[in-house]
């Protein structure tokens, strides 16, 4: 399927097609740009290494996303970045042209969402990001995560529910504090 002599042009082509999708998935997953960039590079190095064995059973995008998910989960296992990213995250938030108290509220809200997501277990997180942000279909998501479509639906539903529950608790707290 892949002409090995043409490996370089193949990988460059694939990289340019998909780096943004992969990065966006990973930035949501890891919660900061630096990690996301490192992981993105890691993903494409893995893609390159297994490109000659890629048998076309899945489509390319699905295959790359499943590698990205593995990289993300491996990374998550290596270091639980729940505590780590808080500081990084605040440094990254660009202040926009809004009134100070509004800025605070938005920032707080974002922090809440962020923490809520970080608390989700990796699999839920992956399903949520794939379905909600990367806009993968149920079929694609089930291929990426290598589980049934029914599981994708159920996990997505549960992940959202849990996220909202956490958010509601947190947001109410934030709003009462802000006033």
């Amino acid at each position, binding site marked *: 399927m892949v002409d090995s002599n043409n490996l370089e042009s193949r*990988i460059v082509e694939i*990289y340019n097609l998909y*780096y*943004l999708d992969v*990065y966006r998935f990973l930035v949501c997953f890891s919660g*900061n740009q630096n990690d996301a960039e490192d992981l993105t590079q890691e993903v494409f190095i893995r893609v*390159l290494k297994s490109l000659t064995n890629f048998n076309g059973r899945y489509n390319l995008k699905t295959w790359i996303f499943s590698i990205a998910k593995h990289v993300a989960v491996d990374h998550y296992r290596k270091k639980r970045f729940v505590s780590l990213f808080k500081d990084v995250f605040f440094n990254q938030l660009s202040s926009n042209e809004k009134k100070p108290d509004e800025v605070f509220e938005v920032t707080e809200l*974002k922090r809440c969402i*962020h923490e809520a997501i970080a608390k989700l277990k990796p699999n839920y997180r992956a399903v949520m990001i794939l379905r909600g942000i990367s806009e993968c279909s149920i079929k694609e998501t089930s291929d990426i995560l290598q589980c049934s479509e029914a599981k994708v639906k159920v996990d997505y539903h549960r992940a959202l529910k849990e996220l909202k529950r956490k958010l509601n608790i947190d947001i109410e707290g934030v709003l009462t504090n802000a006033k």
Partner: protein
Amino acid sequence: MQNDKEIFDMLKDMYPQHPSKKFVALTENTLRQQARSMNKKRIITKFSVMTSVFLVCSFIFSWLILSNEDSKVSIEINGYGTASSNAIDEKEPVVYIYHSHNTESFIPELQTEKSNQMFSHTKNVTLVGKELSKALKKLQIKAIHDETDIAGILKRKGLPFSDSYKVSRENLQQALAEHNSIRMIFDIHRDSLKRQDSTIEIKGENYARIQFTVSKTSVNYEVNKKFATQLHKQLEELYPGLSRGVEEKGVTPENTYNQELHDNSILLNIGSIENTLEETYRTTDIFAQVVKNYLEGRN
């Protein structure tokens, strides 16, 4: 309180949506270098594998030459380095003979005045196939002769006569699956011409004339035709006039005569309703020799 879309929109603009340009360029570069070094490795591996294969082959080759100097065995090495010889493997069948219209018969054999009695369950074209396979056996060519009573099966299953080829096809496919040694396939029939058209006298004896039929609607039309033409030419050289040539049929009604299953698959008409079995046997004996010549590449 929050709908899903809002949450996701917020998530989307929570993080920088683009990696830094520097990162993108750097990564592309890294990948390029990796790919190049992988290519180099692959070429080196390929080269070393090929070298070792070459060395092993030349070792075996020289060993064979040396060890065979005393004996008179010569092994031809073709371009792929595998030994091939024109000797026919006696254990494996190389010819498959069958009869889609197995009850087609010969009037002189049935001692009947009625010319519509052209079919028989005992004295029919199957005997011609049997004679051919015997003649081939004498020449050390193993043949499979399928004597299945196709007409009987059609009758039992209530199928029309036109389904003959579908029924005969089943055994053929199975045989092809079991023996990849089969190099030619003949479906033997007899024609319904007048005696003067289907008979030829050679050295004072009557022979049933033979005709090759190729389906125009088979995907193998070209190769089948080439095969039939080669056999026809050989017969012409040996016994001019014995072959009636290559006929192209199968357009209306459309029929491939199962010829799409093999490159060398053709339909033979040996003799006609007014020939005797003996006349057809004379022809099959000659035809067996032609088959042998073909297999040995003398065409």
